[in-house]
């Protein structure tokens, strides 16, 4: 690439008008484990692969899906440690909003604050962009919502989206199967089938994670046995 001369410094545009570090960050995301989200009529589901580097790793100690507020959850694709920093900052911002307005933060506002943090790291000295894309699922007064936030700091609202290794196959699969009237349970089945598409090995309750939020506006992470129940329904 002719841009390679400009790929050492974050704060420099390349002649083609790109910030090369951000492109590289997106590549880092693209080589991360697949994660996806689907917005149903009465809720949102997010899911991810949980491939551990070895069978000796205790899978109960790893949790990729995190809760930001009682009604907003998040999953990532890319570098795990970077996502931890963002989760911590987002939780704090949500809490600061609550302390000021005495109201839970709306999903769009939290997404915007998180995206602002990610953008700051693309325009400051001595730092690098975050190597994660986040899928934020929430349910507030405006109904169920699903947002994707990229390392550049841009965010999009999706009806269904996927990120990571198998993104193109997953997105094609979702495009074919997405229906706006879908109920949450069917959305979970669709999510599992999409993950199954690109899954290497035997899918089970221990190597995927699923988080749901439905009409009660409470974000829950499903236990491995609950995931097994869904898997049995799908198989």
């Amino acid at each position, binding site marked *: 690439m002719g841009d390679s001369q400009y790929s050492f410094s974050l704060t420099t545009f390349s002649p083609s008008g790109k910030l090369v570090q951000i492109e590289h960050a997106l590549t880092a995301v693209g080589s991360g484990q697949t994660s996806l989200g689907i917005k149903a009529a009465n809720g949102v589901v997010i899911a991810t692969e949980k491939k551990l580097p070895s069978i000796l790793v205790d899978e109960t100690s790893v949790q990729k899906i995190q*809760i*930001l507020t009682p009604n907003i959850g998040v999953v990532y694709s890319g570098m795990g440690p970077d996502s931890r920093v963002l989760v*911590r900052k987002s*939780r*704090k911002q949500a*809490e600061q909003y*609550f*302390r000021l307005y005495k109201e839970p933060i709306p999903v*769009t506002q939290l997404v915007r604050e998180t995206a602002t943090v990610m953008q*700051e*790291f693309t325009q*400051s*000295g*001595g*730092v690098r962009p975050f190597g994660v894309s986040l899928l934020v699922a929430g349910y507030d007064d405006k109904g169920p919502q699903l947002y994707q936030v990229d390392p550049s700091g841009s965010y999009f609202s999706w009806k269904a989206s996927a990120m990571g290794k198998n993104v193109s196959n997953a997105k094609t699969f979702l495009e074919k199967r997405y229906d706006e009237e879908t109920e949450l349970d069917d959305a979970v089945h669709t999510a599992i089938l999409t993950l199954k598409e690109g899954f290497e090995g035997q899918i089970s309750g221990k190597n995927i994670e699923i988080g749901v939020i439905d009409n009660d506006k409470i974000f829950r992470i499903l236990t491995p046995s609950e995931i097994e129940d869904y898997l049995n329904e799908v198989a």
Partner: protein
Amino acid sequence: MSKIAESVPPKGGFSFDLCKRNEMLVQKGLKQPSFLKTGTTIVGLVFKDGVILGADTRATEGPIVADKNCEKIHYMAPNIYCCGAGTAADTEAVTDMVSSQLKLHRFHTGRDSRVVTALTLLKSHLFSYQGHVSAALVLGGVDVTGPHLHTIYPHGSTDTLPFATMGSGSLAAMAVFESKYREGLSRDEGVTLVAEAICSGIFNDLGSGSNVDICVITKGEKEYLRNYMLPNPRTYVSEKGYSFSKKTEVLLTKITPLRELVEVIEGGDAMEE
């Protein structure tokens, strides 16, 4: 190198810069503004299944009753509540702040908050302000390790007790507790005893009055009994009614009825996000 826009924690401690100036002004004859104190009776006791907290509801501003029915039992966590005596703003702000910190802590650890966590956060904050944050607290709750009750003094020292009282009415309430408390009280006995202690404070201390608030916390459950007792109802209302004397000139009488129906316009322009 430009700075990352992250919040830098303050260097800590109270800034004493203006204290000399204030002293000088007082010497020159300036009357320092008074602050709203909750001359108060707050109590807590441990019973068989958990903790019961009680408080009166009077907020005073010197000799004047500023609020006849204020809330002195503050929420800290689903399983922890805190009664506050002292300056109303200080108790409100400090319990709000620690409640917020506990919430973040719950997200990070994935566990329910423990009473000792709240205790440590409160005492270290109060100590770093060297007693200038005038908040005397009775902290009680039930966590995985069992029921706990603590008192926290404005300078940051704490006590762990089976029964505790704080505030200007604390001696009146403690007299009731010392004579009638025993271990292993049932819920109803405990609530009666707490109500009695608060009433003792209400009737014998000028700084406490109005109603009794009670909060019962047990494992997995809490009952916030706002205005559990109202021993000071307004009994005398003048028969003649309250109206303007004949000498008052009434210039204009216009009654604007309250709008009962609010129209929600669907599909209007959305607000700029």
